[in-house]
């Protein structure tokens, strides 16, 4: 951070000119982006906070004035308008996000460990890039790819049948598509690269002499792992988990394409309040604020416990 005095050549005698000129630099550099962020991010977010306090606001209809109706409809069981489904949807979104985080951690840690500590050095960068490459392609298309694997006549069922034929038994076929399992597979698939990338950055910084020292001192590999590796990489683990949690909590594409009517999530519900048939902007805004709040809590935890450097590198 270099806070260099801008425009040192500004004449000192005309102090107001100098002040104006020294304010001009920051304004020119930070003004346009500041204006844009204010117009299209800050004001809109404040607007939905405002609208969320207007019960049952629908575009083009008269409103009843301010109140907590939208929130109480979701959270307060004693409210006459309380609809339990909304709470269920929020619970399901949390469940998907937590389950995705756990499966990404379990699958991603060994992979990141191998890439950071065991893979041949000269190939390491290339191998990591290869793992992250799918992130660059559209999540829409990556979810679409899973449709053809998971649907009833898809490859996974064909594979199951093939094994069944080989063994000589008829294995039950199942429609994997439009189930919670499909959503979890899709979410894990979409966010695993983030987890691997962050864990890799964290494991790469691990002091390997510590591992050797532990082994020399007679620690079993499992002991070394639990007492040295995990504590050393805990900030990275926290960062990876919270990032996956945040992104999967708000994901729209995967639950919409791979999940059915029974896997409604908070982002789908919000979408329906605006672009669907329901058109309840007030409720949609309230749900949006709930989602932002959930994500903000995760961000606060991330800033407190997470390894910010590894996140910054991704």
């Amino acid at each position, binding site marked *: 951070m270099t806070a260099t005095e801008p425009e040192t050549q500004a004449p000192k005698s005309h102090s107001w000119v100098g002040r104006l000129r020294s304010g001009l630099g920051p304004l020119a550099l930070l003004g346009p982006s500041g204006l844009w962020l204010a117009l299209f991010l800050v004001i809109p977010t404040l607007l939905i906070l405002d609208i969320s306090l207007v019960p049952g606001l629908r575009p083009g209809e008269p409103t009843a004035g301010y109140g907590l109706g939208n929130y109480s409809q979701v959270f307060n069981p004693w409210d006459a308008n309380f609809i339990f489904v909304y709470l269920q949807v929020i619970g399901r979104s949390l469940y998907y996000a937590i389950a995705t985080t756990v499966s990404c951690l379990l699958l991603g840690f060994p992979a990141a460990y191998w890439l950071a500590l065991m893979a041949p050095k000269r190939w390491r960068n290339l191998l990591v890039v290869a793992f992250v490459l799918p992130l660059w*392609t559209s999540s829409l298309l990556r979810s679409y790819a899973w*449709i053809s694997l998971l649907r009833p006549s898809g490859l996974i069922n064909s594979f199951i049948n093939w094994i069944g034929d080989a063994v000589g038994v008829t294995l039950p076929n199942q429609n994997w598509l439009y189930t919670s399992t499909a959503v979890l597979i899709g979410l894990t698939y979409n966010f695993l690269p983030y987890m691997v990338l962050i864990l890799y950055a964290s494991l790469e910084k691990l002091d390997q002499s510590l591992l050797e020292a532990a082994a020399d001192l007679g620690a079993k590999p499992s002991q070394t792992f639990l007492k040295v590796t995990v504590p050393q990489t805990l900030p990275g683990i926290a960062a990876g988990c919270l990032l996956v949690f945040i992104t999967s909590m708000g994901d729209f594409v995967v639950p919409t394409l791979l999940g059915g009517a029974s896997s409604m999530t908070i982002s789908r519900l919000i979408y329906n309040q605006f672009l669907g048939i329901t058109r309840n902007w007030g409720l949609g805004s309230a749900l949006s604020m709930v989602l932002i709040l959930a994500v903000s809590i995760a961000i606060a935890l991330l800033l407190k416990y997470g390894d910010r450097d590894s996140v910054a590198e991704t």
Partner: protein
Amino acid sequence: MGLTPPKRLRLPFTWQGALTVVMYGFMYIPIVVLGVYSFNDSNRYTSVWQGFSLRWYEALMQDARLLGALQDTLFVAIVAVGISAVVGTLMALGLAKYSFPGKSLYQGVSYLPLIIPDIAIAVATLVFLASMAIPLSIWTIIAAHMVFCLAYIAVVVSSRLNGLDPNLEEAALDLGANPVQALVKVLLPELMPAIVSGCLLAFVLSIDDLLISSFTAGGGANPLPIEIFSRIRTGVKPDMNALSVLLILSSGMIAALSEYLRYKGETSQR
């Protein structure tokens, strides 16, 4: 890339290594399957292989609606990224150069588009546009895309700026360059790889964006992700496979270019 073979190519077998291979399979098998079936010579989509054919690619080229959607997408991405490249770079420079009251708030807000779920941003933008009575068109998509484009570009440029020698600009100023010359002749060339790689990232995010476009498009524009979404929602179509292959290949190339630039930037820094 020498002619002498590496001394030891054999890796000791470890379960972590085996699992990593499985993970690579997990990441790539769906994409490969998608690609293979885009060449399947079938009338409709089946898992049965019926011979090699390019018919779905031909169908794609004759799909005027799809080509129009592609045009909209590219227009949005190019304009949004082009403006954001300038605005985002200026922002990164400003944040590195000046300290002022409320700076951490400014910085915090600039990170929000990276973290806040798309759906929340999309909804907020729609409500804002509606309350200002701004008609939805391709320009409202561009305006909305600029928010995350400039945020991503600023982040990438900032991280490069932090790695730069802070004396570089001062040296130029001491040697008699005016601030604009110091910026254009000294700082910008150093920042160029970061700016380009930030732009590539923003470009890919823009052409992939479904939610923000859906909420800000109205009837005026029909970007590709919206068109794809409405088609694949009802199931699998082989021409969508062909389209996926083309899009995945092009974003793969953009990704490779960006990673290469980043790699080059990192090695030249050390």
